[in-house]
């Protein structure tokens, strides 16, 4: 995109042109963010919000320390936010990875077999409506340990969109492609690799992208409830207990940023592996 637009306006100074064209993309979001911070600051200054404003967050000694020391380490429950985030991310990676493997596999099975679909779909539709927090007590009761229970909560929250989208993708393989496979009598393996998978891939990625957001939401929820495990969710809970609101705000910024990055990461993979224009 960027390269093409530079080339199209090859005359004059290409760099200047580029900046002018892309400028709106840069400064409008910055104006938006600044505006947001200003409104927030005003609202908290005139006491409509009883939250500290952005200036207080920067000025407060504790939150300032957190901002400038993301990697400090004192004890498992007292460490920098980057470290806490990394711990949470490791859990997400495990739960989400498991959900991807199981979800895609089950989705393909369910999408291929009408009978399997008919018998399991009501259960899936039912289970996917259960909120992440509701899974916490169940998974704690079932697994009895915090760590596997947290991973299970991520798994069970994020599997549904992957499973359901994969199944739809498999069901929506165009009849034309199935006919090609029938007339050529393609082996099961060739059909799977050359027709089913590429055909369902855009759907699978749609599921994966919805799921990564859910997985990140779930881990925060799970950690807040499962006290005593290190992680950004528990950090928030801990800070709340001690009434360090500025600390919570810094952590929330981390959570939002990581969620955004995760979403974009999967979106990037999607555009590389399953471009929409084919």
């Amino acid at each position: 995109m960027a390269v093409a637009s530079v080339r199209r306006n090859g005359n004059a100074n290409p760099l200047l042109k580029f900046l002018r064209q892309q400028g709106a993309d840069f400064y409008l979001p910055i104006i938006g963010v600044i505006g947001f911070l200003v409104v927030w600051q005003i609202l908290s200054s005139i006491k409509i919000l009883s939250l500290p404003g952005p200036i207080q967050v920067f000025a407060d000694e504790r939150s300032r320390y957190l901002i400038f020391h993301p990697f400090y380490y004192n004890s498992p429950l007292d460490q920098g936010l980057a470290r806490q985030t990394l711990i949470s991310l490791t859990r997400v990676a495990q739960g989400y990875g498991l959900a991807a493997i199981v979800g895609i596999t089950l989705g393909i099975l369910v999408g291929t077999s009408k009978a399997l679909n008919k018998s399991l779909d009501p259960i899936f539709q039912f289970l996917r409506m259960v909120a992440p927090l509701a899974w916490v007590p169940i998974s704690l009761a079932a697994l009895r340990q915090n760590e596997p229970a947290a991973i299970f909560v991520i798994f069970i929250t994020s599997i549904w969109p992957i499973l359901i989208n994969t199944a739809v993708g498999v069901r929506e393989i165009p009849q034309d492609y199935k006919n090609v496979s029938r007339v050529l009598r393609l082996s099961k393996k060739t059909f799977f690799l050359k027709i089913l998978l590429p055909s369902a891939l855009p759907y699978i990625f749609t599921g994966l992208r919805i799921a990564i957001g859910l997985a990140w939401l779930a881990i925060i929820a799970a950690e807040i409830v499962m006290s005593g495990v290190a992680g950004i969710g528990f950090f928030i809970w801990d800070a709340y207990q001690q009434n360090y609101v500025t600390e919570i705000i810094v952590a929330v910024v981390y959570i939002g940023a990581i969620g955004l990055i995760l979403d974009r990461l999967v979106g990037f993979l999607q555009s590389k592996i399953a471009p929409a224009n084919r």
Partner: protein
Amino acid sequence: MISQGNQAMTTPAAVVSAESFLRLEQVSKVYPTKKGPFTVLTDITLDIQAGEFICVIGHSGCGKTTLLNMVSGFVRPTTGEVRLKGQPIKEPGPDRMVVFQNYALLPWLTAAENVYLAVDAVWPKKSRPQKMAIVREHLAMVGLAEAANRYPAQLSGGMKQRVAIARALAIRPEILILDEPFGALDAITKEELQEELLSIWQKHRCTVLMITHDIDEALFLADRLVMMTNGPAAKIGEIMTIPFPRPRDRERILEDPTYYQLRNDALDFLYRRYHLDEEAE
């Protein structure tokens, strides 16, 4: 590739000597619908010799695709039987390769990979270089050597149809089935492809069954033209033998008075005796 079981299943009727290469015998097709059974085709009997070029023409919805699908094996006749060399046709197979109405190329494979998929499915034991050579040969044959590594989205309609034809021919089918292959193409591309198809067929001599809506196309290509009556319950109305010598030359045919005679007969059949708005019969 045809299952061995067929050998044992040969019915006494099929053993009768001198059975034609492809025979549709008393074939009918009835679809069950919500409003009751819907008869698409009845009483179809047709004998086709090996190497014949047959065109099928008829008004939209009369059942041409259904008819050819019973040869390719995607549809089973309700009554009657379709037999290839005496063996009833039970399922699709690469010996009856189809050029589908909308190309049916896999968009995530290049032109060459699309053809390779077919070649690889039919001759899994051949070495990769051998299979690649077959792919290249057939893409060159349809004039697409240069576009081998392009994806279908990067090809024009005519080029896609060429790839589909190359894919079909590369696996050396006994019967080539084409469902309105040139319907969506502009006039020039259409004539080019007709000529290519004809010269390829001249070389390979497979049997061709082709649906068309274009009388001139049929007269240029076919040995015989099967004209269907209107649906529902369509039949074969008339079979026209097209006597022009081969190899055919478009200009020469257009100078032949027989051409206009045949053309008028076909037009008369389609637009007077079986005009869509009128009652059939």
